[in-house]
């Protein structure tokens, strides 16, 4: 008897859950009443705020935060809130968070996802909910292959960054022997592939794993290959560990890596001495020399120097805010607004105009090389277009 009762109760609970879920899904389609002023809208940020690559995500979140802070000051009667989705940079955690963002009808737009793997894993959900996104930093080219509609990229992709890094290795460093390592992530492999294409032949190639700690075998291969330059496609934790172990084993070359490594945390992992001289690229201009009052405002609010993509995040967040200001309070209206957008970002100076597949207008794409000097990442030179 008791068992039966329990079963009945269980069944009721399951039914209730299903009904609740269905109701939640239905509310996705409902749009907040157009025309009237909607004042409790939210702007999402999607990226790593904790975890191995949080250093990158936090700067972006801070850029978005600054934009909102300023907007809310000027529009105190109708504020926009920040909703954070901390993915830890993990593609496995992304779909659940994407569903959460898609289901919250107050979220009118999303800055992010920050990394390529998590973007790949969540685009389908965003498309289903017609939620417009602008990523300030996911650079894998294939993200725009499918016509997602909702996808926009506020920076150049690795078809710009990879070849530029390759040209830098070839023309500036004049390296004859280059060893290429990637971390098998959506971003890392893509970037390494582009670099290899430009270099033609390489001294050797290896693939490591995200979260790997011991790189002894890879280091042995790098040393034996006689390479003077090591290109790493991946994020800063593995890059720092690999470089630290390579330098400790007596390798004396230069590491070149992309925007996933372009963060002060890279130096924290590798140590000042090992990191010195490392060249880091980014399809962005230095955030520390951004235009207008951005750097001063950022420092005032966050109490730190702006990091990679902080300025881009700030500018793309402002695109959404301009839309809200202009009365675009539904996802569909916002999407149309972004697709037709043509304006200059106040921090980056880049003119944001998106192509049909969501890519930034190619004339606006620039790639910079940075260098690690005395324990800090400093801008070096803009890499000329090929």
């Amino acid at each position, binding site marked *: 008897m008791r068992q039966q009762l329990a079963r009945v109760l269980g069944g009721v609970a399951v039914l209730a859950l299903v009904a609740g879920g269905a109701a939640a899904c239905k509310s996705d389609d409902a749009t907040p009443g157009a025309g009237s002023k909607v004042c409790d809208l939210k702007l999402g940020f999607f990226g790593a705020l*904790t*975890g*191995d690559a*949080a*250093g990158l995500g936090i700067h972006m979140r801070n850029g978005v935060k600054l934009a909102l802070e300023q907007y809310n000051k000027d529009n105190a009667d109708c504020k926009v809130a920040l909703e954070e989705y901390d993915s*830890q940079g993990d593609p496995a955690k992304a779909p659940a968070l994407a569903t959460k963002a898609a289901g919250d009808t107050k979220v009118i737009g999303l800055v992010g996802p920050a990394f390529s793997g998590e973007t790949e894993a969540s685009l389908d959900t965003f498309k289903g909910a017609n939620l417009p996104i602008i990523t300030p930093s996911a650079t894998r080219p294939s993200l725009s292959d499918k016509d997602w509609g909702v996808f926009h990229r506020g920076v150049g992709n690795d078809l710009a960054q990879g070849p530029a890094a390759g040209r830098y290795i070839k023309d500036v460093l004049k390296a004859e022997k280059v060893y290429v390592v990637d971390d*098998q992530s959506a971003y890392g492999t893509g970037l390494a592939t582009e670099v290899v294409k430009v270099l033609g032949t390489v001294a050797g190639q*290896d*693939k*490591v*794993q995200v*979260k*790997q*700690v*011991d*790189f*002894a*075998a*890879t*280091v*042995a*291969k790098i*040393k*034996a290959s006689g390479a003077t330059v090591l290109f790493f496609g991946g994020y800063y*934790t593995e890059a*720092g*560990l690999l470089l*630290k*172990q390579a330098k*400790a*084993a*007596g390798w004396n070359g230069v590491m070149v890596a992309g925007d996933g490594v372009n963060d002060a*945390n890279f130096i*924290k*992992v*590798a*140590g*000042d*001495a090992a990191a010195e001289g490392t060249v880091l690229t980014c399809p962005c201009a230095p955030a520390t020399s951004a235009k207008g009052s951005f750097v001063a405002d950022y420092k005032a609010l966050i109490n730190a120097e702006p990091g990679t993509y902080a300025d881009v995040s700030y500018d793309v967040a402002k695109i959404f805010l301009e839309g809200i200001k202009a009365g675009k309070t539904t996802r569909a209206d916002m999407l149309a607004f972004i697709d037709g957008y043509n304006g200059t970002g106040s921090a980056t100076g880049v003119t944001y105009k998106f192509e049909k597949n969501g890519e930034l207008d190619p004339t606006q794409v620039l790639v910079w090389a940075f260098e690690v000097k005395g*324990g800090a990442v400093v801008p070096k030179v803009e890499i000329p277009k090929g």
Partner: protein
Amino acid sequence: MDFSELFRNFPELTTTGLTQGAIYALVALGYTLVYGVLRLINFAHSEVFMVGTFAAMWTWNALGFNQNLSPSGVLISAGVLIAGLLAAVAVSSATAVAVELTAYRPLRKRNAPPLAFLISAIGASFVIMEIIGIATDRAPYGNMPELVSNKPLFTILGAEITPVQIVIVVGALVMLVGLDWFINNTRLGRGVRAVAQDPDSAALMGVNKGRVIGLVFLLGGVMAGVAAVFANLKYGFTKFNLGFLFGLKAFTAAVLGGIGNLRGAVLGGLLLGLVENYASALVGTQFRDLVAFVVLIAVLMFRPTGILGESLGRARA
């Protein structure tokens, strides 16, 4: 298949593989000790190792040593190293005993089925990992001083030997010999063997079972603490989920050598370190774990109880 890569780098792959394997071996001892006595896989052991790495790092930092400091004299370095070692051993063994007291002992008192212990173990592992994860922002930590030089000391057959490698391999072997002697020659060790062989008879003969179980967790924690300091010396890096990978590999090593068997754990650890390195060179680092586990399965097909067999209680231990 890149045989030239393997042969060209063979000496270096061997030395670095042995170093890595020595760390696996020390962690594996903890799995094997607990399994030998309780027939329980203590999945929380990986976190016992992880908290040790943080304890040592924080001790070094508190003493004013960080990664950007140039190496100091041998005596000072040794002193700082030992301070870190004591901290790691203390924290790791305390964690191990705490896990036993909170996650396992209450279940044992109620005669819970083995599955309950397994879930309790996984739960304890998550709790510790998440606490450290939240406390450290899940960030990677690389701020560790170079206490033992990693500059080559001399060369044997083309392999450069560094002081770090010597310290780790010799240290691990010393720990094993000490543990082996302790289990085989002391009164407490006899108690451990007795409980491993037949818990009920041992209890009838006056062995305090609860104390013996506490002792094996303590010993496992000590080994993990030493392993944690060695990992810090080798990688100069830690983070909240560091234990997961090391724990998995160490558990594999314990099974490879014969779980429950102390010498087996060390043999398995060293072997796993070597296999991983050779596989990385032969077929690429992306196949490293695949090859390691294929080797494990192949060994288990021919020797289902591992290379040396299960035997903490029997004479071979």
